[in-house]
């Protein structure tokens, strides 16, 4: 068993036992469901919107090469410096080099899961820079020295009391556990950091190939300040974030807001098209855009699962996932958690090391039903299982299925197996749940159904 799977099981055991944690997450996400449904109802047809979005992303991803060329040409035409990064390490090095060139030490950063994917903060801190997260949820998680819990709601698992204690401990200031008061504390700390920052770092939600714009969606205005105040702006974006046309945002902005947070529109949606142009009074003097591959092109080459690149990182699949709701975001041990994380992590970080995430699913399909861009998520989990078993079959599991197949295909053996099951019931009952019980993984928490003496087929035969 790889260390990743044993860590996953240990954390899953801890988290499923933590009833308070499960209740906090369930309550928060049931609240999300109510507002999401209200806003879904505002669409003329949510299902048609999903279909249109899926087709747009299909077009974007299946013609990614031409869209990227157009995007880059447009960005460069207005003086933006575009960098291509094949790997996460390359992206970190490109950004570190920009900081060295600028002799920059202080970085203010708005929310970016892609930067979490490449462990950017760690790389920049190793260079001697200080990085401050300006999204409130990310700021809280940075103070806790923990990765985000959820791709959209980074600190959703914390209560206001826990945040108050954290602020008191780390910032020495927390007048009450009132969210307004706590936000003001964070705001006072952050405002200073904006002014001191040499470089502003952002992620982006969409890249518009037609116009060469990056679209950033946020609720706090921190991303706008991050982009506006420092002289240098750096934006990191995965190559799959491309949309063909500017008009596509008319669908994708409300869709992202609805699916992601149950909002009609996110509070601030800003389109960035270049650094400060001659005659303009604000904006960064320099804008660097780093386009990240990091094995996305390998996923692109997989015709079966290519649609996983449609993902707009809304988090809708996490929110509805009964596994996520019970084990929480940190249990996954990945940047992208929940169903989409279980689908793409094996592609980004290796199938055999991360196949357990595809196995840790009842394949209920709630994720696929919720996905606004119609990624076939739960079927991709099945395909990951198939690919993992083909590449590295588990000896005993395969043997068990071979034997099961022999028994199932031979009526006499099947009859015998049922009889043996019936006869050994008292024995199994005696050792129920103990180490001697071959069914202990079931019987530790659940009873087995009593097996009747007469099976259906016995009845059928007797009847004839």
């Amino acid at each position, binding site marked *: 068993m790889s260390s990743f799977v044993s860590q996953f*099981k240990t954390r*899953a*055991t801890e988290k*499923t036992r933590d009833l308070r944690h*499960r209740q906090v997450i*369930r309550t928060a996400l*049931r609240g999300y469901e109510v507002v999401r449904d209200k806003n879904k109802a505002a669409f003329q047809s949510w299902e048609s919107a999903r279909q249109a979005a899926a087709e747009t992303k299909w077009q974007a991803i299946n013609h990614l090469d031409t869209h990227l060329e157009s995007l880059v040409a447009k960005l460069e035409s207005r003086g933006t410096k575009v960098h291509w990064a094949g790997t996460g390490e390359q992206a970190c090095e490109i950004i570190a080099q920009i900081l060295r060139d600028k002799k920059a030490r202080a970085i203010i950063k708005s929310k970016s899961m892609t930067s979490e994917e490449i462990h950017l903060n760690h790389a920049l801190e190793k260079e001697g820079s200080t990085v401050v997260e300006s999204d409130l949820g990310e700021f809280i998680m940075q103070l806790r020295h923990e990765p985000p819990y959820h791709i959209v709601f980074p600190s959703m698992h914390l209560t206001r009391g826990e945040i108050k204690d954290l602020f008191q401990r780390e910032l020495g200031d927390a007048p009450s556990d009132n969210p307004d008061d706590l936000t003001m504390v964070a705001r006072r700390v952050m405002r200073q950091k904006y002014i001191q920052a040499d470089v502003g770092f952002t992620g982006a939600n969409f890249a518009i190939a037609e116009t060469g714009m990056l679209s950033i969606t946020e609720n706090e205005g921190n991303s706008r300040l991050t982009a506006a105040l420092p002289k240098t702006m750096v934006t990191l974006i995965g190559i799959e974030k491309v949309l063909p046309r500017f008009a596509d945002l008319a669908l994708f902005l409300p869709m992202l807001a609805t699916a992601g947070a149950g909002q009609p529109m996110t509070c601030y949606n800003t389109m960035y098209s270049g650094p400060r142009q001659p005659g303009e009074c604000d904006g960064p003097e320099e804008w660097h855009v780093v386009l990240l591959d990091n094995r996305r092109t390998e996923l692109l080459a997989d015709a079966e699962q290519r649609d996983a690149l449609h993902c707009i990182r809304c988090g809708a699949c996490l929110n509805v996932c*009964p*596994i996520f*709701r*019970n*084990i929480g975001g940190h249990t996954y041990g990945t940047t992208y958690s929940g169903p989409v994380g279980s689908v793409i992590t094996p592609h980004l970080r290796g199938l055999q090391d991360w196949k357990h995430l595809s*196995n*840790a*699913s*009842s*394949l*209920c*399909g*709630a994720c696929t*039903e919720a996905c606004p861009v119609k990624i076939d998520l739960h079927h991709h989990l*099945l395909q*990951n*299982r*198939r*690919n*993992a*078993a*083909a590449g590295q*079959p588990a000896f005993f*599991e*395969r043997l068990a*299925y*071979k034997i*099961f*197949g022999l*028994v*199932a*295909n031979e*009526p006499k053996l*099947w009859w015998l197996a*049922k009889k043996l*099951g019936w006869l050994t019931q008292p024995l199994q009952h005696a050792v129920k749940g103990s180490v001697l019980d071959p*069914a202990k*993984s*079931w019987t530790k*928490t*659940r*009873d*087995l*159904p009593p*097996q*009747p003496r007469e*099976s*259906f*087929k*016995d*009845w*059928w*035969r007797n009847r004839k």
Partner: protein
Amino acid sequence: MTVTLFIPCFVDALFPRAGISMVQILERLGHTVVCPEEIACCGQPPFNSGYWDEARAIAAPVLEKLADAEAVVIGSGSCGAMVKNFYPELFKNTPRAELARAISARTWEFSDFLVSKLGVTDLGAKFPHKITYHDGCHGLRELGIQKQPRALLAQVRDLQLVEMAEVSCCGFGGTFAAKFPMISTAMGEVKCASAAETGAEYIVSGDSSCLMHIQGLLSRQGSPVKTIHLAEVLNQQ
């Protein structure tokens, strides 16, 4: 019509009353029921675990046995989805691809067969109890089974259906229940709590496998709530 009834392995061994009810209902409606004794399992356990060669070894003889069936009826959304949706995928690019597609087109989940194919909703049943209905995920999301069982239950005398506030998986998921018992159990606890909130005496479902999981938890918790397959409810006179 001659109906070929596919009895899933765990229904055969553990829940024969569900299968017997299906036979009796279909016969009362005037159909001839055949039940190929050589078929034990659809192959879903190895299929869902990723062992598709082993799944094909079980599924190929099933296809052969069903080749001449006029209509295949399966009393489980999960096994129904396997034959109807996943067999064409499993046998894609193999010599049995066409047979798998042909059988898929003639395969029905039990409640869907009654309501959509036969156009029957009133089976003359009487079940004087308060119940809640659990939608098995494969039936619900792979096959679109949601209205059919409710149309059937609406005609059952003295039955009161109270829906659960949360539509969620029971946590069974086949081998998932054994590979990740802590997650599976937690999901089942959520399901049982939702069912308890309704005040129902029975949890009814078209999937015995979900009910096996739910009943396993209820019985361990000492809950008085019982589980019963839809076919058994519809067969109560």
